[in-house]
C-alpha cells in the first residue's frame, strides 16, 4: 500500500543551490523541535510543524520486498512521537562535507561503516566522527580473527540496506532485508545532546536525541548495542572476544556470492521445552537441493537438539532412568547386593506400569504448552510495530 504523507507536513522542499557562506540559509527546517536551544537558532523561522495529538497509528501492511524511502522513515519517526530536525543539503559523501552544512547544529556527526566478515555476515558500525575505529581490533573483539572485517561489497548497499553509496545509516535497518545486519553503536553517542544521521539519503541529515534514537531502534525490534569502539582489550585464551554476542546469527545472500539461505523460524513460540525452536529443518519446499547441500553441521545439530527436547518418549525415558538410578542406589543402601536381580525385576515392573501414564501426561503438557504458544503468536500479530520482525517475516 502506498504511503501517503500526513497532511500536516509541508510539501517536500526541493534542493536549494547554495554557496558556502551561510549554512543557516542553506537548510530549511521541516520539523521544528521545541527544544529552546534550537529554537534560539531558528528565531527567524517559525516551526511549521509541532507535535500535536495524532490520529491513531496506521497498521501498515507492507510487502516484504518494499524498501523504505526517506519520507516513509520520517513519517514513521513522527508516528513514534520522535522529534527530530531535518536539514536538506546537496549530496555529501564524507563527514567533512556533511559538517559544512549541519555542523552548526551542535549535534554529533556520525560516520557509518558497512562491513562484512568472511562468513558473509553484515555489520553497520556507527561511530562519532572523531572516534578512532580500528577494524583489526574490532574484528578480534567480535571473534572473527585478525583480518575478519572488510568493507561490504558495493552491491550490498542497494540490495540489503536499500540506500545509495554514501548514505549508510543505522536507519536503513528499518528494512526487512537488513534484519540480519548487526549494529554496533559508539557509546559516545549516549552523552551527546543530538546525533546526526542520514535518513536513508545523503541529501538530508536529521538530528535527534540519543534516547529517541534508541526508541526508534526498539520499535524495529533492535536492542541498541553501545560499545566502546576505541577500547582495545587483548583477546586471547583467558579473554574471550567481548563483542562476540553482536555477531549475527544468519549470513545473507550477498549479491554475486552463493551463500547460505537464512532459515525461517517456526511460527509458534512456546515455553521452556520448545524455546530452542529457532531454525526450521531443511525442508523448504521450493529449493530442496540447494539447501540440503548447504546445510551446515551446526544447523543439523540444532535441529536434532530441538527434536530431542520436544520428543515426549525420550523425555519420559530420561525421567524413568533418573528415578530408577536413584531408587536403585537408595535400595542398595538398605539391602545387600544379592538382591540385585530382584531389584532390577521390580524396577522393570514399576517402569512398565508407570510408563503409559507418564507418556500420556507428558503429551498433555506438550500439547497444552504448544496451544498457549500458538495463541500468543496469534495475539502478537495485533502489535505489528513492536513485533515487526516476527510479523513481517511471514
Amino acid at each position, binding site marked *: 500500500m502506498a504511503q501517503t504523507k500526513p497532511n500536516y507536513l509541508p510539501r517536500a522542499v526541493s534542493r536549494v543551490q547554495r554557496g558556502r557562506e551561510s549554512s543557516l540559509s542553506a537548510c530549511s527546517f521541516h520539523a521544528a523541535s521545541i527544544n529552546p536551544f534550537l529554537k534560539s537558532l531558528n528565531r527567524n523561522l517559525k516551526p511549521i510543524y509541532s507535535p500535536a495529538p495524532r490520529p491513531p497509528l496506521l497498521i501498515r501492511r507492507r510487502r516484504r520486498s518494499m524498501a523504505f524511502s526517506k519520507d516513509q522513515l520520517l513519517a514513521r519517526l513522527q508516528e513514534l512521537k520522535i522529534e527530530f530536525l531535518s536539514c536538506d543539503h546537496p549530496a555529501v559523501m564524507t563527514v567533512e562535507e556533511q559538517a559544512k552544512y549541519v555542523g552548526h547544529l551542535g549535534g554529533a556527526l556520525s560516520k557509518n561503516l558497512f562491513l562484512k566478515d568472511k562468513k558473509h555476515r553484515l555489520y553497520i558500525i556507527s561511530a562519532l566522527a572523531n572516534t578512532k575505529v580500528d577494524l583489526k581490533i574490532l574484528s578480534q573483539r567480535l571473534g572473527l580473527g585478525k583480518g575478519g572485517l572488510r568493507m561490504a561489497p558495493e552491491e550490498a548497499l542497494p540490495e540489503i540496506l536499500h540506500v545509495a553509496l554514501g548514505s549508510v545509516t543505522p536507519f536503513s535497518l528499518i528494512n526487512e532485508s537488513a534484519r540480519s545486519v548487526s549494529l554496533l553503536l559508539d557509546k559516545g553517542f549516549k552523552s551527546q545532546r543530538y546525533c546526526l544521521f542520514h535518513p536513508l539519503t545523503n541529501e538530508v541529515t536529521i538530528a535527534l536525541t540519543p534516547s529517541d534514537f534508541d526508541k526508534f531502534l526498539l520499535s524495529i525490534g533492535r536492542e541498541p548495542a553501545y560499545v566502546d569502539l576505541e577500547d582495545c582489550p587483548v583477546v586471547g585464551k583467558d579473554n574471550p572476544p567481548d563483542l562476540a554476542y553482536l555477531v549475527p546469527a544468519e549470513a545473507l545472500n550477498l549479491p554475486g556470492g552463493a551463500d547460505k539461505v537464512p532459515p525461517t523460524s517456526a511460527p509458534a513460540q512456546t515455553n521452556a521445552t520448545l524455546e530452542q525452536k529457532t531454525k526450521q*529443518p531443511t525442508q523448504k519446499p521450493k529449493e530442496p537441493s540447494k539447501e540440503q547441500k548447504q546445510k551446515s553441521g551446526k544447523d543439523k545439530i540444532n535441529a536434532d537438539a530441538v*527434536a530431542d527436547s520436544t520428543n515426549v518418549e525420550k523425555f519420559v525415558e530420561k525421567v524413568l532412568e533418573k528415578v530408577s538410578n536413584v531408587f536403585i542406589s537408595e535400595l542398595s543402601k538398605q539391602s545387600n547386593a544379592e538382591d540385585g536381580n530382584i531389584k532390577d525385576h521390580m524396577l522393570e515392573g514399576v517402569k512398565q506400569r508407570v510408563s503409559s501414564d507418564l507418556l500420556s501426561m507428558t503429551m*498433555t503438557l506438550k*500439547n497444552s504448552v504448544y496451544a498457549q504458544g500458538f495463541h500468543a503468536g496469534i495475539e502478537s500479530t495485533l502489535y505489528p510495530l513492536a513485533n515487526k520482525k516476527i510479523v513481517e517475516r511471514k
Partner: protein
Amino acid sequence: MASTTGETLAAAEPIADGRTEEGEEEQVVNPWEVSAKGGKIDYDKLVDKFGCQRLDESLIQRFERITGRRAHVFLRRGLFFAHRDLSDILDAYERGEKFYLYTGRGPSSESLHLGHLVPFMFTKYLQDVFKVPLVIQLTDDEKCMWKGLSVEESERLARENAKDIIACGFDIERTFIFADFSYMSPPIYKNIVRIANCVTGNKIVGIFGLTLEDYGGKFFFPYIQAAPSFPSSFPHIFSGKYSKLRCLIPCAIDQDPYFRMTRDVAPRLSYHKPALIESKFFPALQGESGKMSASDPNSAIYVTDSLKDIKNKVNRYAFSGGQDTIEKQRKFGANLEVDVPVKYLNFFLDDDAELLSIKEKYGSGAMLTGEVKARLIEVLSEIVERHQRARAAVTEEMVDAFMAVRPLPRMFG
C-alpha cells in the same frame, strides 16, 4: 475398469444389502450397517469378498524390524488384521520415502466408547513409531446427511469428539484435525470435484447401495471422504516435495468401500493409491454380535464411565464363557471362544506372558470367571482413567490450535 494390481471395482463390490443372488441373507458389512448370520462375522470371507490382504506374521515382524520396537498389542493380537498395499508403504519408508496418516470419525454422538477409540489408539502408535504427520477428518457433514442432525449440532458434536480424540495423546506438532464444515476450502474442494469427475452415480450406487430416493448429498459424500487421501488437499502442510506424499489409512474394515473407490481414482489423478490397515470390530460386552451400539449403554465401556460403572458393566453384562457353577468350571474350564472378558484382555492386556497364563488357567478351570473379570476391570479402569485425565486437560484453545490451518514444520522431526 481394472486397476494395475488387478483388483477391479466390479469384482470387489459386495452388494450393499448383503443379499446374494439366491436372496439369502449373508453378513452385511458396510459403513452404515454391520450384522451377520448367527452373530459372528466371518472375517476370512470378508477379506476375500473385499479383496484386501491379511496382515500376517511376516509383516508384523517387518514392523518390528523397521520401527525397532515391539509391535502394538492390536497388531500382535490380530485386531488390525487386514491391509492394502501396506508392504509398499513399508518398502518406501525403508527407502527414506515418508508417508502421512489419515483417519477420521463420524461425530454422531457425544459419548464415545472404547471401540471408537481403537483406531485412534492404533493411529497414535503409528504416528509415534514412524514419526509421520496425521490428518483427522471429522465428518460432521456426513452425520448431518445421514442422521438428520442440524448443521449446528453436527458442528458441536464434531468439536466435542475432537477433544476425546486429542485425549488419545496425539502430538500437536504433527497432527491436523479438521471438520468438513469448517475446513471446506479451495484446495480440498477442488480435489473433491476432481474425484467426483471420476466416479459415476452408478458406481456409487453399486458400492454404497443408495437409491434415487436417497438425498443427493449421500451420493456426494463419498468424494468428501476420499479427498483427504490426496496430499494436495492440505497445501499448508504438504507442499513442494511433499505434494505427492503417500497416504496410509488406519480404519475399521467397514470403511473399506470408501477407499476402494479412492484407490481406483488415485492413479487417474496421478497420486499414489492410499494404503489401508484395517481392524476387526470390537466385540460388544454381550458377545460377538457385530459392532458396539451407541444406543445400548451396556453394550460397551464408555470413556465417561466411572470406575464403578466399569465394574458393574463387566460383572453384570460381559458375556462369560465360564461354566454355570464353580464345580463345573473347575472340572471343564471355560469356553474361550465366546468369553468376552478374555477377548477384551486379548486386546488390552499388553503382557503376553500374563495373558497366556490367564488363558491356560481359565481354560483348564484353575481360574474362575470372577477372577478374570476382576483383572479386566483393572486393565480397563487404568485405560479409562488415563483417558479421562487427558480429556480433562483439553481446553478450547488446544482444540483451536489442533484445528488451526497452520504449517507443521516439524512433522517428520
